[in-house]
Every structure is written in C-alpha cells, then in structure tokens.
C-alpha cells in the first residue's frame, strides 16, 4: 500500500514538473502585466515557411513592446487541433487574434463568435467579421513566375506546369497567373498536372510528363517543394530544363545558388507575421486597418540568391 501511495505521488510529481516546465517555456514571451496581447494561430510551426512567419510576428511584438503568443499544431493536417487552439486562445481574451487557416471553411464558425479583431494572414477565409487579410497576391506571384520562365526560353518553346492539390485556391491562382504570362510570351504549355505540393509526387508527375514530351524546355511549379521534385526528375534524365518554383524556401534558394533551380518567386512570410501583429495592434487601438493588404513577392535568381539566403538564415536564428 505504501508502495502504491509512493507511486501515485511520483506520478503526480512528474505531472506537476512537466506542467511547470511547460508553463515556464510558455511564459518566456510574456512581457509586463498591462501590455496588449496578440495571439497568433498558424497552420503549423513545424516547417521553415511557418518558422519565418513566427519569427516575423515575434519581432513585431518585441519592437512594439506587446505580448505576442504564437502557436500552431504539429502539422498542417491537424485541422481540428487548430480550431481547438483558436478556441483556447480566445478563452484567454487576447486583444486581437491573427490566424492563418489551414482549411479556410473550418475556422469560420469559431472565428465568427470572436469579440476581438481577427486578422487573417497567408490564407483568406470567407469571414464576415475579419478586420483584414494580409497575404500574397497569388495570381501576381504566378504571373511573375511565368514571366521569369519565359525570359529564359525562346518564343515557341514548350513548357509544363505542375500545380497544387485540386481545390487549393492559392496554388490554383498561381497557375492561372503563370499561364497568362507564358501565353503572352508565346510559350506553349503542353502539360499541366497536380502534384499536391509534395516533392516526391512532383518527381513522379514530372517523370510521366517527360515520357510524353521530352522536348520540354521549362517548368513552372506552384511551390518550391514541387519545383525541387521536378528538378530531380529532370536531372535523372540528364535534360536541360529551366525550373521555376514559388515560395522562396531556404532549400530552394540554396538550389538556385548551386545553379540547379532556375529561380523562384519568394513570398514574404516574415513580413506577413510582422504586418499581422502590427496591424492587430492598430485594430486594438481603434485605428483604421485596410481590409486587404498585399504581401510583396520577390523574384529570386542566381544574382540575388546569396542575399536572400543570408536573410532567411538570419531570421530563423
């Protein structure tokens, strides 16, 4: 019996320790008592892209002297966990909420009930009470990508497009933009296939495309992971094909520096996080915030890749 009591107390003590440890790690970001608090709920914190958003949000909090909490599920597939996290942040009555919805429709019911300003970043949702949406103009990003690819090819050359998952509005818009630019430049798009934003899938999709069209000179991929997958398929065949991606991830920029990937259209995840928090504070203070804010895109090629790489490395430190 004594043993049992001891066991229970050990278990209880363990739980206590675990929770205290967790508590401490959570309080790091806490500023003073009376500062404004902005809660940021992202799609996940486990990929480089979202780390940049997190870094931007935290930097804004530091500069503006407000308390910023950034949370997100383990992966982008944990949709319900994100909804729960939004609920749990709302129950702590933050001054404002910044959200990047994984599945736009799923956050609408919980966010409609929010009685604080809600700002969306990266991905928009059909939410009546949103204060603002800050994100990349995906059509424009795709258009820039198409233009960049066309500038590396000759008029009349053949090109392929690798798109994201069906129904992914962000990648769909990019593909539309890229197609428009390629058409204007007189490049013929001979194949368009989805690879669900996944590197491995993009590789096999590209292998299939090359089976039929081995005279392709360029590829536009709707994100960088797919671009890198496409690149592998192209390299395996020993072909000279220009591949353009979208996002501007560290891996893509490194590949550009190594002379493999031809270029990418970089989004500004760091800025999205930063602007999200900054405008959330403005909304708390009752200032007018624009309903739609464009987050800039940047064309990355071998010329400016080194600079971008240093920036990316710096912000995640």
């Amino acid at each position: 019996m004594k043993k049992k009591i001891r066991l229970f107390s050990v278990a209880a003590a363990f739980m206590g320790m675990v929770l205290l440890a967790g508590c401490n790690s959570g309080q790091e970001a806490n500023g003073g008592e009376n500062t404004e608090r902005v809660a940021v709920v992202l799609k996940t914190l486990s990929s480089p892209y979202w780390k940049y958003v997190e870094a931007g949000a935290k930097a804004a909090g530091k500069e503006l002297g407000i308390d910023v909490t950034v949370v997100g599920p383990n992966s982008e597939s944990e949709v319900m966990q994100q909804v729960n996290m939004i609920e749990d942040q709302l129950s702590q009555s933050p001054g404002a909420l910044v959200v990047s919805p994984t599945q736009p429709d799923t956050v609408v019911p919980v966010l409609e009930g929010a009685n604080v300003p809600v700002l969306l970043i990266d991905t928009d949702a059909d939410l009546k009470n949103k204060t603002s949406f800050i994100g990349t103009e995906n059509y424009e990003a795709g258009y820039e990508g198409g233009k960049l690819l066309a500038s590396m090819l000759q008029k009349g050359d053949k090109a392929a497009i690798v798109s994201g998952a069906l129904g992914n509005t962000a990648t769909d818009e990019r593909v539309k933009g890229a197609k428009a630019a390629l058409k204007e430049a007189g490049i013929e798009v001979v194949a368009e296939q989805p690879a669900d934003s996944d590197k491995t899938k993009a590789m096999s999709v590209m292998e299939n495309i090359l089976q039929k069209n081995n005279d392709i000179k360029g590829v536009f991929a709707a994100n960088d992971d797919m671009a890198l997958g496409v690149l592998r398929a192209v390299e395996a065949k020993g072909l000279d094909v220009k591949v353009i991606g979208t996002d501007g991830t560290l891996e893509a920029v490194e590949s550009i520096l190594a002379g493999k990937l031809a270029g990418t259209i970089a989004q500004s995840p760091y800025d999205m996080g930063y602007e999200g928090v900054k405008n959330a504070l403005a909304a708390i203070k009752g200032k007018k915030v624009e309903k739609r804010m464009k987050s800039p895109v940047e064309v990355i090629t071998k010329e400016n890749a080194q600079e971008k790489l240093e920036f990316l490395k710096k912000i995640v430190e």
Partner: protein
Amino acid sequence: MSQVAVQTKNEAVEKNRAFKRIISKFGPLIGLILLTAVLTILSPKFLTINNVMNIARQSSINALLAIGMLLPILTAGIDLSVGSLLALSIMMMGIVTVNMGMHPLLGILVCLSVGAAFGWLNGILLTKLRLPHPFISTLGTMNIARGIALIVTGAAPIAGFPYMIQFLGREFVGPIPVSFLLVIVVYVFFHIFLTRTQTGRYIYAIGGNPEAARLSGINIDRVLIIVYTISGFMAGLAGLVMVGRVNSAFPLAGLSYELDAIAAVIIGGASFLGGVGTVWGTLIGALIIAVLRNGLNLLNVSADFQMTVIGAVIIAAVFVDVLRQRKSKKA
C-alpha cells in the same frame, strides 16, 4: 496465532482489498482530479465556465470514437479504421446534402450508415474471411476508406452544410454544448448495453475467455460483427458532430483519431487483453486527454511538447494498471 490476531489480520486484508477496489475503480478519476487541480493553480483561465465548456466540446468527438473503440478492445481486438471512417462518412454526407442538395435528414442517414456499413465490413473480414487479427482487417479498411474519401471529391473540401446537420456540433443548451449532452446520452446507453443486455455480457465474456465463451455456446462471430458495426457507426456519429463544429467536411478529417480513441480507452483502465474496461473509465480517459490538450494550450505549451506529455500519460496510466494487477495476483 491467537484468534484475535487472525481476525485483525483478516480485517487488514479486507481493508487493503477495499482500498485496491477503490483505486482500480477510481484511479483514472483521481488522475483527472489531480490534473484539474494542477492546471487550476497554473492557469487562472482554466477553471472558468467558458473554458470548461470548451473542454466539453473539444472532448466530444474523441469521446464518441472512444466509446465505440471500447467494444473491440473489450473483445481483445482493435479498430484502426475509425478516423478514416469518420472522414468517408462526412464526405459522403457532404456530397449528398451540399453537392446534390438533398434533404439533410437523408445526409445524416448516409453519414451514419456509411460508418456502420464499413464497420460491418470490418466484422465480416475478421469473422468470415478469417483474417488473423482485427489489426490487419481494420488497417486495410483504414486505408481503403481514406482513399475513397480523397477520391470522391478529388481531395477538395465541402463547406456550407444545412443547419439541421450542424445542430449537434454547434448548438448549446444554456451554456452546455449539445455535443457533450449527446456524449452523456450515448454513454448512458452504452453503460446499459454493456451491463444489462445479453450481448453486452457476451462482449466481456469473449474478451475475458474466448474458449469458455465458445464452449458456453455464444455465437462469437455474430457478437464480433455487432461490435465492429457499432464502432463504425460511432465514427459516423463523431463525424456528424465534427461537421457541426466546423461547418465543413474535408477528406483528411480524423487523421490519426483512432490513436486518440485507443489512448482514451486505455487511460480509462481497459485492458488490451480484453474483458476489462468500463464505459465511465473511457469517458474519464477522453476527458483526461482533452483537459491535457486544453490546459497545455492555455499555458501556451508547444504542440510538440503536448505530444510528449500525452505519450507519457498513456505509459504512466498503463504502468499503474500493470502494477495493480501484479499486486492483486500476489495477494
């Protein structure tokens, strides 16, 4: 030994047994209370009506899956397919009601029957095709159902469900979420089913001692098919609640939910060897997981750390159980 000494010793043994019974019956509950106490001290927002209702709502989907999962585990089996069945059920409901514009009641019927039908299939695969273990049959249907859920709309989500479908997951009675009231009703029903009906007692018997169950003339196949059908049905019901919460259906819904459901059942004191486990223990198991997640969220603990904690709790809960059984065997 004098008679008095024997008597006091017997009394001590009696007392010890009573203590053990209490621990074994209320162990998970004590854990939940301890956890609540610790979180109340750490976060001032934890024990507020608003947050308690959040927990009730957040626990309801897993609670519904877990009570379905309890049945296969009681028969020394497992159902890995429930997360995928949830996804397939709600996608089919979305197609029927949103895309085809049919009556919401028909959609609800489709949602529940898709779950039940696949559950029944799990039972048939196990008993008629004689696949060696439900781990295999349900692993198969887990992938089949997820695949179909992705195929039916080409992986696109479906949003904008009629109010009748959203009701369960969305509405409140006073401050109490309807989804949690549903959980209570379902759990009372399962308690009666498992303790007061013949089939319920057979389920325990099959898990406790399959050979004896067979010899006493129980139609094991029939009971197992019922068990897996119910588990599948509960996946459909949990899906209905989820759609109400988020007003949308998406093919990756319920990804790895089977593991949370199994964890709830095990933390609630059920044995993987079958025959041991209660309805109320399962509810407490589901609440412990929800309270942990919610509490760690309130403390802004990262999601990665939460996984670690929940893993540790599962091991700790089962370890306490193992120790208890070892001791009671000695006694």
